[in-house]
């Protein structure tokens, strides 16, 4: 057993884990934060994406011990006392989720994307989330949600969130 200490969503946590424990299990089982999901266990789907020291990572393919001493953000840590993170608002308002199982992972990936590139083109957004699978939405609204969040974070005029028909 090894002792792992890390900061999750601003709070320090310590746990005794076996060397083979995956980070996603540490988060879900030891710390009872179940917003991070497991969709494949082979780093194919991105449902388990979290931020480790600001960088997005698939927590199903990282050992808990590797995350010792890091700072982690999960979906539970996106909102602040002031309210939802713009990416959360964006996903909500643009109906960028159906079953919701992929949502946390895609949002966290998008948060990193927007931090590095606050004003991404549509192509950059697509490239940015190409490692995340969603079986429900067809992705279009996910792109819109990220564009909306980008506008909001930069104080720009917000795109309409009404469903668009021709």
């Amino acid at each position: 057993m090894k002792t792992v200490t890390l900061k999750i969503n601003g709070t320090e946590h310590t746990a005794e884990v076996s060397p083979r424990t995956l980070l996603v299990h540490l988060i879900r089982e030891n710390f009872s934060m179940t917003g991070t999901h497991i969709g494949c266990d082979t780093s194919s789907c991105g449902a388990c994406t979290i931020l480790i020291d600001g960088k997005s990572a698939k927590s199903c393919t990282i050992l808990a011990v590797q995350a010792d001493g890091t700072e982690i953000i999960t979906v539970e840590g996106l909102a602040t006392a002031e309210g939802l993170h713009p990416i959360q608002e964006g996903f909500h308002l643009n109906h960028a989720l159906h079953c919701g199982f992929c949502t946390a992972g895609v949002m966290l990936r998008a948060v990193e994307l927007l931090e590095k590139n606050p004003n991404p083109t549509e192509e950059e957004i697509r490239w940015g989330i190409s490692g995340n699978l969603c079986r429900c939405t067809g992705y279009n609204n996910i792109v819109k949600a990220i564009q909306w969040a980008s506008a909001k974070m930069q104080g720009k005029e917000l795109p309409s969130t009404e469903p668009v028909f021709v």
Partner: protein
Amino acid sequence: MTQNPKPRKKKHSLNIDAPLHVTGRTIYLDDMPELGGTLYAKVYYSPYAHASITSIDYSEARQQPGIIDIIDHSRIPGENQIGGIIPDEPLLAVDELHFIGMPILIIVSTDELNAHKASQLIKLEVEEKEVIVDVEEAYRRRSFLSAPIHFSLGDAEHAFTDCAHVFEGSASSGGQEHVYLEPQGAYAIPQQQGMKIFSSTQGPTAVQHTVAKVLGWSMNLIEVDVNRIGGGFGGKEDQASPWAAMAALAAHICQRPVKLILERGEDLQMTGKRHPYQSHYKIGLDTSGKIIAFEARYLQNGGAAADLSPAVLQRTLFHSTNSYYIPHVRISAYSCRTNLPPNTAFRGFGGPQGMYVMEAALDHAATALDIEVHDIQRKNLLYESAEFPYGQLAEACAAQHCWDEAVESYDLSGSMKKIEDYNAAHQWSKKGLSLMPICFGISFTNTMMNQARALVHVYHDGSVGISTGAVEMGQGVSSKMIQVAAGCFGLPHEHIKLESTNTTRVANTSPSAASATADLNGKALQDACSQIIHRLQDLLRDQWSLTEADELQIDNASAYVAGTDHLMSWQELVTLAFQQRVNLSAKGHYATPTIHFNKETSKGIPFAYHVYGTAITTCTVDCLRGNYELDKVQIVHDFGSSMNRAVDLGQIEGGLAQGIGWMTMEELIYNDKGQLKSGNLANYKIPDIYSVPKEVQVQYLNTPGAELAINKSKAVGEPPLMYGIGAYFAIHQAIKRFNPQAVIPYSAPMTTEKVLLALYSKRDSE
């Protein structure tokens, strides 16, 4: 049934679940807090596609630390049987193994790692038998899962002799893995009486019934609760039941809570998929391009047990003529037994497979006659009162309307001109375009299943709790149910809470499937709400001494009579009703009227209504590599009067993407030993963001909507999947622009490899 109050005018575009999803507060099955003492079950399954067990020894595995029990078929107290339509599928193998992934043992342990270690110590000895994977081989041997089904209209045999042109050929479509992002699973908890099961299922009653059968208990001892599921797409309609039954069996034997959640790899190996089909068609046209006669034989690869295959097979025939009227039709379908996992429901339920063959036949005819396929398509579209091969007449038929609107508003001729110019200017890159009309019937084709119930409580503080048989799986049915109740009571949706789907609150539910969930459950919910509203109205009429002429309204969170001082808030009204001992709870029931179907004659009115639409798909093929991109898909869709445009548009986009995946890139590969070679998400590719069209446009065709649709908002779950078939034929068109002599077998999915082969194919004679 009482008269429904008018639904509220305002159209909400809300997804009631979004705030939970974006904050990570949604509770899926594996997110539930576990009870102390919870055990974990792991399934030990057959590594052979066809074999007899000669011996199985798990004594060493049983001794492993943490192993609480290893359960085989002999420990089942009830029936070792999970077949839903036909009892041909054991829960745990007895002595015969019929597919790779067939469950044999349940390993129960204190943690998943120990179970995994134990499974590797199990010694299975078998006598291997001949494996059949190929559906045509199964057909040759007359190895069927159920009786063949035949539909006919007119006199196809004679009609062919009158046809100027007759074309025959074959078309095959591959299977499709559901990849609901949340894998299958269940959590069973022994109760002081009976068993409570949390299940990731589309069919709570199917789970309840199966568990009861396996445990040998009556259904009232089994409570099934579904909070929501992380995607289903048909894969959890019947095939969620075995995992629940295994968890319950283990929980019963160990008298402790047992959780069974499949890992993705296990899920891919053990569960059934969309049925692959191998079909043969014959189509006859007159000189003007009218289709006179159509014959087809559909061979369905059903896998090793019937599961839902007979029903899926039937829907293939229902949709075999897609959106076209054909006066003479003779079609037969065979469900063939092979050594694959039992294939099952998948969005479209056999319909897409039938429609694909129809489109292949039309493409064949057009290619041979050297005319545009859309000229043939347009000429044969369904019209009002045209007869389907099953005897129902097209009503409020929007087939031509959708098509013409698409052609006009998306400027088809302009698009075609642009494509021509592009193709003339590019030697190694070609564009292709297709039109894909759809017509999809709404209702369970098993008439009995078209019923639903709902339970509504108005609590005495004025808040409302509703329960239905609908399972939320991402299709937005929760939002629609809340809209229905809010509309009936005239309350803001924040006043309404939707409860989990639970068999003790709403019994005998049909699965959330067949696109009919919102219609059936919504109408049952309206019935329940109306009963309460009527009681409240009676109370007020009495209280305010109103006459029949007074227009009493309960809306905007209040009750009032227009033009008078009579006014009461919702809260006051409910308080008054409670004081007056008015019943503030109601149970609603709904059974779709008018529908019926005679299986003997294959005639009837199986569908409450049909949904229509047309998609124009444009793609670009890289003629050096065989890669392709979908440039855009432009759709005109018959929504009726959508009650939730955001949800419905989302279903169009998501269904389209899934249809495209099935038709283009999702390839299930089995070797001749029946081994799934594309057994994880790294080699079974579902559409990522680059595989979906760069642009999707949807035109909302405002049709009157069907009375039998909830609030006239037509069902939208399955129909859009079939737009994806357009991607397949658009790619064909592009290939023909590069190589007019290309020989392209009708074989979906149209993977990059197949595209490349087709680009450089030659006719034999050359």
